[in-house]
């Protein structure tokens, strides 16, 4: 339905209103956590995030007491 059409200015503006990762690539994120942030979240919203689990960041800890390393 939408294939082969150029992405419009409105669409570009919409896509830019979301953090699609570019700013995070430039951040100290990878240096601090040793992995790229997951799809939407940073290290704590995706329970499937294996890099985070392997880094001991998120899984199984109480968010009320959680501190990032």
């Amino acid at each position: 339905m939408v294939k082969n059409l150029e992405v419009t200015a409105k669409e570009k503006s919409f896509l830019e209103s979301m953090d699609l990762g570019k700013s995070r690539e430039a951040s100290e994120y990878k240096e601090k956590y040793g992995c790229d942030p997951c799809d939407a979240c940073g290290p704590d919203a995706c329970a499937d995030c294996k890099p985070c689990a392997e880094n001991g960041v998120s899984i199984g800890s109480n968010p009320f007491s959680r501190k990032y390393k």
Partner: protein
Amino acid sequence: MAKRQLYLQWDSTNNCNLECLHCYHPVHTKDKDQMSLAEVKEMLDDLKDTSERWSMIPRISISGGEPLMRDNLLEILDYANKNEIITALLTNGTLLTSAKAKAIYDTGVRRLQISLDGKKETHNNIRNKSFAYDKALEGIINASKAGIDVTVSMTLMQSNREDFEDVIKAAIRNGAKKVGFKTYVPDKKLGANDPEYMDAKDALSVFEDTGKLIEKYSDKITILTSDVLWEIVKQDNPAKEIARQQNKYLTGCSAGYRALSVLSDGTVYPCRRLPIPIGNIKEGIVNLIINSEVMQELRDLDKMKKNTLCDKVSHCRGCRAVAYAVTGDYMAKDPMCFKHLLGEKND
């Protein structure tokens, strides 16, 4: 860099074999205007094409009514999976025989959500059928044995808020991989007077108790922290700080951004819990997301900041559906938000 997901929740049918207290559908009659198989395939094509266009990952959750009562369900699942759309079913589990679970697995589906709303008596009262609990547990077992990862999901409200630990235990006993809850959205006619509604104080109590349960059961099951209000207590990290500085959407409620909810007749809402029609899926996903005035307003973070006086709108925004149900304004502060009750704990 992982890509973002473009997400549809599709109510495949209004038909259901239960009569749940918290259901979005007032009646369960045979759909007169249910999308045809051809129309469903067009929707899936659109999801795939739009995802490619925007460099996103296509994902769909198929719900109902009860999706196992939808005609051509297996053919639809097969079509979605062959088009590399991440596909999950949201079901009450009561019709999920071992043969049906195997057939679903064979289409490529590897994720399935089954609802449990409390211990047996609570669940059966909420679901209004005496067989609902036992059959749901059978469904969890059958899906797990077929090789499908089961997430048990609870709608949390006043009448079952004490039962979440029982649900966790049942999920573990029967082989589920994950368990979590979504908070109840009150009836818009009743608003905060809905007897099942939890205010901010109630919500904080529930979330604090759940934090302790996460620690208690973390070696046995993954307890999801996907309800949007968890964002209040998740500490900031560099990604969130940057999104906040740039006034960009990062996480939290996805209404207005990368999700749409499609009813069985093709009517589209920004979220299944926010019943404001913005068009029909036949109008196209790009058009609906980009041009709908409601969707555009939901993306107005400046307005939301002004209304909520909150600095976390880039990665939380509260639940827009609860705000709408209680205040009549989907841009208002989520009245269940307990951030102000945390004091210095979260600053």
